[in-house]
């Protein structure tokens, strides 16, 4: 079977060796493909799974998507230990080594300037959730007393709606303060779409889902500010993830579709 090349990232030549047993998607060993003073980090993947048609079908399969995403991230994480990689979008696949070299050559200038911009930076993820008001949660858990009349019912509904509105406003105001403060500390920031509560399994809707590009040297300060703001937040819940490779800050190549 012909193998295709799955490319995880492009980076400068590594100063330290990669983990010897590092495997990528489909369990294949990860290799470095040097070209023009840069390296592509690649592994071989079967065409039966990664050619256009089968890949499209696989991406509809959550288990497959999850396994592939985790394997991709595992390689990026390992690279982050030894260098600052420029991560590529999930499932960037080339025909063979020479097609990968061609890609490096075409985008060399852009790759170099991106690596320069990201050098020594990491990404932190910060999410703010609207937490369920205790009284409200209790009310939701226990069946509400049956309203005596239509008017009672409408009054109950109005009160519930108003309580929700207040919670939202409070959480949004907090999220906006937090985002301003963190953006000032970070070199760049990016807002991701809020995550669905049903999907993340989190308690309460997600009001802020942001990523921040922070120099490693300033990460400690960044985390401290998040912790402090978290303690100050009376209602909303703050979640910090990272440090990540700078996935959210690589930008698109000029001329490539975003």
């Amino acid at each position, binding site marked *: 079977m012909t193998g*295709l090349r799955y*490319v995880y990232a492009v980076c400068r030549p590594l100063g330290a060796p990669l983990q010897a047993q590092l495997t990528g998607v489909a369990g294949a060993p990860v290799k470095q493909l040097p070209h023009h003073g840069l390296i592509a980090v690649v592994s071989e993947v079967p065409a039966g799974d990664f*050619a256009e048609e089968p*890949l*499209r079908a696989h*991406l*509809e399969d*959550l288990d497959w*998507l999850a396994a592939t*995403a*985790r394997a*991709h*991230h595992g390689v990026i994480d390992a690279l982050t230990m030894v260098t600052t990689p*420029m*991560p*590529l*979008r*999930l*499932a*960037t*696949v*080339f025909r063979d080594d020479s097609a990968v070299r061609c890609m490096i050559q075409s*985008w060399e200038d852009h790759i170099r300037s*991106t690596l320069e911009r990201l050098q020594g930076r990491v*990404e932190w*993820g910060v999410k703010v959730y609207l937490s*369920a008001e205790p009284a409200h*949660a209790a009310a*939701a858990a226990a069946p509400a007393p049956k309203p005596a009349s239509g008017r009672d019912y409408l009054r109950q509904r109005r009160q519930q*709606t108003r309580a929700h509105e207040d919670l*939202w406003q409070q959480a949004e105001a907090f999220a906006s303060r937090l985002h301003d403060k963190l953006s000032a500390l970070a070199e760049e920031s990016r807002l*991701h*779409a*809020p*995550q*669905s*509560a049903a*999907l*993340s*399994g989190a308690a*309460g*809707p*997600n*009001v802020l*889902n942001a*990523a921040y590009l922070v120099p490693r040297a300033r*990460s*400690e300060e960044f*985390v401290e500010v998040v912790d402090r703001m978290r303690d100050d937040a009376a209602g909303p819940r703050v979640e910090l*993830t*990272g*440090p*990540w490779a700078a996935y*959210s*800050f*690589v*930008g*698109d190549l000029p001329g*490539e*579709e975003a």
Partner: protein
Amino acid sequence: MTVVERREVALVDLLDRLLAGGVVITGDVTLRIADVDLVRIDLNALISSVNEQVPSPFEIPRAVPGTTAAPDGPRTEEPP
């Protein structure tokens, strides 16, 4: 370097980054996942699988921009 508690990365956080982040380079296999937000598209399938174990603890009062607040997939609410 600050040490943050190392937990397993949540799949949703990962997909945010791998499907909406990373440099988009058109390889030989041309996929338009850049245009297609899979996390949202496949939401119904995801929700039904998530709901089996984790019923949503909170009724979403209104749609969060960019998400599907009211899933069409099967719900696991207790019958009255």
